[in-house]
């Protein structure tokens, strides 16, 4: 790695220029067939008519989107009212994901900063410690969280045991449990980009601010934060986006009252509701929201790079 680092490490060369089409072809074909085509097919399905017991009838229809946004009564001939059920579920997902992102930022930022200011030999070790849990099965992590937080679980036992509590904290099946689960699922995504940004930050700027009698917190707020903003934004997106569409944390930690988009979509394909076009439409709405967020952030990132 040392040799590469000396030359900047990111040089692209054209040694295999003639072969590049053939080298890329397998990945292109695989991803086009297995990712791009399915997403397009899902778009088509969202405009089809539902078949009872799953599947679709090949007949154009807007009813999936209509059902999402409007309530036309039991027989479908009442004047349309806004249907709040699904909008509420989306809103709850955004809110939960936002809370989890905030929680991750509050814990993740100081952690990332602390790691980035360790000695260069120790930094990879810290990063490794933070990333290990991410590679452990998400299902197992969520189940472990549930086990730990249960009313009769080890956390409550310990708190009651040392006399801090008389009655167990009822965390499971609350919004907070879901936020905690999401936070736990995606925390490394917050830490890593902020860490990378702080590591590149030139601390001479902070020293200059200190020389001019800025307090430490002023320096942090006015000098460091603006400089590492792209890293913070990237971290927030990397936590927010998967949180919004998550399924396991709300399903296992939240219970039926704390339904999120992921569960709504899953139910259309697995459960009794069995409305494929509606599930496809809900997925399209989620995907559109995510793509808008990614596009806005990419544009801002490009703007920041030019400045």
């Amino acid at each position, binding site marked *: 790695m040392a040799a590469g680092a000396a030359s900047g490490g990111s040089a692209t*060369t054209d040694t295999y220029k003639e072969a590049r089409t053939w080298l*890329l072809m*397998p990945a292109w074909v695989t991803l086009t067939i297995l990712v791009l085509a399915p997403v397009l097919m899902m778009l088509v399905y969202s405009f089809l008519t539902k078949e009872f017991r799953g599947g679709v009838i090949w007949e154009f229809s807007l009813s999936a989107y209509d059902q999402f946004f409007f309530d036309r009564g039991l027989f479908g001939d009442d004047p349309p009212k806004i249907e709040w059920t699904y909008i509420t579920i989306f809103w709850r997902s955004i809110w939960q994901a936002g809370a989890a992102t905030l929680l991750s930022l509050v814990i993740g930022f100081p952690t990332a900063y602390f790691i980035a200011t360790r000695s260069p030999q120790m930094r990879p070790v810290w990063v490794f*410690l933070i990333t*290990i849990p991410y*590679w452990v099965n998400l299902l197992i992590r969520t189940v472990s969280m549930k086990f730990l937080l249960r009313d009769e679980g080890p956390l409550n036992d310990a708190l009651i045991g040392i006399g801090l509590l008389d009655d167990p904290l009822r965390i499971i099946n609350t919004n907070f449990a879901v936020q905690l689960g999401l936070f736990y699922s995606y925390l490394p995504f917050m830490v890593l980009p902020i860490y990378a940004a702080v590591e590149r930050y030139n601390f001479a700027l902070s020293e200059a601010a200190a020389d001019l009698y800025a307090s430490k917190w002023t*320096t942090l707020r006015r000098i460091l934060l603006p400089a590492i903003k792209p890293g913070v934004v990237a971290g927030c997106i990397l936590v927010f986006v998967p949180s919004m569409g998550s*399924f396991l944390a709300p399903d296992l930690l939240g219970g039926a009252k704390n339904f999120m988009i992921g569960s709504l979509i899953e139910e259309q394909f697995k459960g009794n509701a069995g409305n494929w076009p509606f599930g496809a439409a809900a997925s399209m709405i989620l995907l559109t929201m*995510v793509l808008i967020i990614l596009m806005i952030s990419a544009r801002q990132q490009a703007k920041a790079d030019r400045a």
Partner: protein
Amino acid sequence: MSNNSFDIRAYTGFRAITFLCLAILYAPLVVVTIYSFNASQSLTNWEGLSLRWYVEVFTGPESAKFKTAARNSFIIAIIAATTATILATLAATAMVRGGKFRLRTLSFGLISLPLMVPEIVLAVATLIFFNSIGLDRGLLTILLAHIAFCIPFAYLPISARMQGIEDSYEQAALDLYATKRQAFTKILLPLMMPGIISGFLLAFIVSLDDFIITNFVKGAGVETLPTAIFGSVKQGIKPNIMAISTLLLLVSIVMVTISYLVSKKDNTK
């Protein structure tokens, strides 16, 4: 320098929060590992150390189900990770050693697409696609879906590694009348090995761990470890689930550690 109160880089409380962060990350895993050795039938009481739940995993009434699920999981992970690693290595060579070309940005977008699309959306899309082309759900559909989402996980460490290798080694080989193919297989590929191994292991873990997409595209009665565990957990957490979890946790940690150690190794000297 780090304990100097005049150090402008140090903020009070940041160290404490870092340790809190590690505690939150590891506490659930540690607790489950400890309780998997609990002798008690109940989840709540601690009745001393025992291996009975591990014995139960391998010989108990559910052992046949979990054995089949584990076999499915490992077969799919090995094939999916191998395929994804080969595709990613070829693609990385074109992206890093193929000069500038018009489709480069687009290709990168396509490769990272599985990371940008929310997993549940990719699951729905894949299910709909297999359904519309009339492919019956089963091991094959799981495998195809896994190959697709493993590609970016294999690609990222491989291309990072290749960017760190100067092309002077290959140029020297070419100057000495090696063919392009020889320069690739005899010089670049061995230098890339740490990145390739690391990419393979990450893809392997990601495949082994996947629940959401597998749950959508698996046929009735076909289970992988995560879907079998999820099915069991739905009826309540049982001690044997904690033993299985601990075993899987061990597999993940061992593989990530190998991947970390291998990727740190510098074989360009």
